[in-house]
């Protein structure tokens, strides 16, 4: 076990590598969440605990229900059954904006940059508890001016970190695909989340940018933000994640450290075997 791991990373590595296992300090506890589309059981997760302060990856073949699961947890879709607790707070039954306000913020597989707004406005939108966002204070500039300046300073700092400073006054629609991914991640960070859910943050990004995105994701963890992300690229996942949850046909079929998961026969059958074979077949 590498010596430079933080306490949370070490803790999760000693957790029981079976589906639904208990974690030492879970930030998110999921019970019996299910969703079916007609006859198709898209998600059926009996129990899952997500460790605080580490990077947890969701993997699984296409159609495994990863994105649907994300949508359910953030209430962009309604589960048929299930409960989930975040930071000890019951989130099931809350609406998506309340879930984000509680500190669980997501990004989307297809980036949702707000095209006709400047990059800076995109960033500043992310900040929570802004006084000027309520109708009546909006008309009294004095009531939100100082907060606005603080939000802008923070956005400037984050844009610098994500190498977007030179684009701050441009329309977000003029950004490249990779820059939009960066912007979306940076914007989510403006809300100071406890847990950030990244839906395929590396999809459609050129390989050079993938490295820098990975560095950003690791930096998040090192600042104490818990990260939950969906990713297809196995090499990326193995290098960066502290814990991997494998989904297939809507169920959690395995959990474990990258080493444990890559040696798990169930996983190899369900995902790795076919996936690697396909990868070799494509130029």
């Amino acid at each position, binding site marked *: 076990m590498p010596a430079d791991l933080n306490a949370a990373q070490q803790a999760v590595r000693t957790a029981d590598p079976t589906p639904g296992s208990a974690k030492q300090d879970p930030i998110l506890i999921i019970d019996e969440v299910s969703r079916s589309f007609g006859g198709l059981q898209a998600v059926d997760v009996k129990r899952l605990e997500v460790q605080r302060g580490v990077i947890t990856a969701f993997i699984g073949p296409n159609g495994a229900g990863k994105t649907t699961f994300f949508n359910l947890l953030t209430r962009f879709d309604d589960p048929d059954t299930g409960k989930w607790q975040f930071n000890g707070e019951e989130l099931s039954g809350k*609406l*998506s904006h309340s879930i984000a306000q509680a500190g669980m913020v997501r990004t989307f597989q297809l980036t949702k940059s707000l095209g006709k*707004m400047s990059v800076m406005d995109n960033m500043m939108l992310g900040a929570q508890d802004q006084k000027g*966002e309520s109708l009546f204070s*909006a008309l009294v500039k004095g009531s*939100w001016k100082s907060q606005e300046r603080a939000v802008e300073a923070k956005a400037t700092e984050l844009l610098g970190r994500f190498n977007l400073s030179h684009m701050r006054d441009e329309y977000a629609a003029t950004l490249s695909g990779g820059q939009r991914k960066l912007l979306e991640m940076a914007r989510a960070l403006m809300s100071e989340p406890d847990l950030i859910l990244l839906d395929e943050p590396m999809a459609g990004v050129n390989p050079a940018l993938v490295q820098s995105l990975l560095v950003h994701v690791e930096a998040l963890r090192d600042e104490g933000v818990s990260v939950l992300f969906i990713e297809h690229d196995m090499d990326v996942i193995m290098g960066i994640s502290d814990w991997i949850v494998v989904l297939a046909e809507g169920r959690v079929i395995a959990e474990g450290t990258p080493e444990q998961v890559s040696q798990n026969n169930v996983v190899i059958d369900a995902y790795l075997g076919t996936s690697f074979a396909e990868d070799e077949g494509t130029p």
Partner: protein
Amino acid sequence: MSNLQLLAGFDMSKLFGDSIRAGINVQSAAFALGAVGLNLHYGFTGLLNVGMVAFMAAGSYGMAIIFTQGLLGGSILLGILGGLVFATIIALLVGIPALRLRSDYLAITTIAIGEVMRISFRSRRLLDITGGPFGLPSIEDRSADISLADRIGRDWNPLFNVDDPTRTFGFWKLAFDGKTLWLMIIGWTIVVLCSLLVWKLIQSPWGRVIKAIREDEDAARALGKNVFSYKLQSLVIGGCIGALAGIVRTLDSGFVESNQFKPQTTFFIWTVLILGGAASKWGPVLGAFLFWFILVFFEELLRQIISSSSDMVFLGLEANDVGRMRLIIMGIMLAALMVWRPQGILGKKEEALLDAR
């Protein structure tokens, strides 16, 4: 007939004078107000409101009913307040169910509520309140023996002179009597105040959320914004501005009648907004001026051409075709504008280009 001969028979001062007059009169201010409200709905929030006329009707009828029934003491200001409350109720009735759904549902609901209101107001069952099919030809509080037109045009009018009631203000073709000028001042003042109010809101963090909803509702939601609440706020504020449009028009005309609130009024207001440029600060104002200027200009132009030609026909058009022809010309100009300047006259070109990606 040569072009020069054609021009010689023209009354240029009437042509331009009447057009400018139409562009700045009270009717134009009412359309500008409607477009300011629609600009908040569509230009900034992305709400497809195809029933602006419903809010105008709520404002007009709300004020007229309160005034004629002698409720609240027949005061104009309280009447206006009543119109705004009525518009707010309509906005909530439409918005609470429809704003939870996809944007097209709001379009269907708003166009329907406009017609529902117009046809209900025409109903004979409401004869005592709305005047049914006859409307309220003179908005007056009979118990107190005062009419809305007198109150606003005479009692409250600083430009009204008892000794010389027919005195006019202005010059050339732009001379107005005291009542018209006073209502123009009221109307355009409300237009400017509402434009500034909307602009101030849009420049605030509130406006940032509103624009984010226009761009992508889900993104706003994922960042913790209560999208439904913001859309409802926008619908109510824009709806109240729309109600003011109806109120200004009614203050000017002194009567209400359900046919003033046909669906085409909504589409004229859309034309005004698109001409001037959606999501711009003064687009609705310029749009309203141009809309009425163009309509009257071509009407007058065609009329003069036809009456100066020997057989009273021009390109197969006769004098009574002019009213329809001016709308056709407006439509062609709008289509041409969409091709060459889709952002409208004051809209931002870059933003329109981003849409095309």
